[in-house]
């Protein structure tokens, strides 16, 4: 690997995980409250 390759490798290595971890860290949607009240 060249020095330029190392620079790109480090840059991409620190950039790429950001959106992935951000996405995985988002709050879980509220649990389904189950079926609504019966209309019968």
């Amino acid at each position, binding site marked *: 690997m060249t020095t330029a390759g190392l620079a790109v490798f480090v840059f991409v290595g620190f*950039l790429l995980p950001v959106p992935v971890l951000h996405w995985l*860290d988002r709050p879980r949607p509220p649990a389904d409250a189950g079926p609504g009240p019966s209309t019968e």
Partner: protein
Amino acid sequence: MYAGHFAVGLALKAKEPRAPTWGILTGVGLLDLLFGPLVLAGVERASVTPAISPGFTLDYIDWSHSAAMAVFWSLLFGLLFLRFGSRVAGVMTLAAFSHFLLDLPMHPPDLALWPGSPIHLGFGLWQTLPVGWWVIELGLIAVAGGYYLRRSKASEEFGGRPYAVLAVLLALHLSNSPWLSPL
């Protein structure tokens, strides 16, 4: 250090859930995000050293990684988040500066006090413990990741998939191991 930076960032997120995750994670890597373009621009210098841990030497990284510049970049980064409140801005500053603090034990003495300073810091675990540094970083990931896991389970504001987050951290750490790293 690589995945350990992200682990500490996630622990900071767990401490201050109002802070945007993307911001914290960008912050913990900020100095290396600056390092890449500065090397390509010829401002900073590094050399590839195959078979010598960690696979490269950082010959001149004073503008991205010196202590004074780390303080400067961290404060500047924190200022960008003032609209989220002073506490969040403070956490962002800490996230960015944590990079310097975590690099300190790993790097050989290549972290200048300020650009051009003859005094360089670094305890050199990369070189004195060619495998042990990886285990030490794994311990840091375990502690920080464990904190994130515990806090995320008690919160509905963040951490919806904590085990997937931990799996990504471990995958990143494995990819940077002495056995698998391409460097």
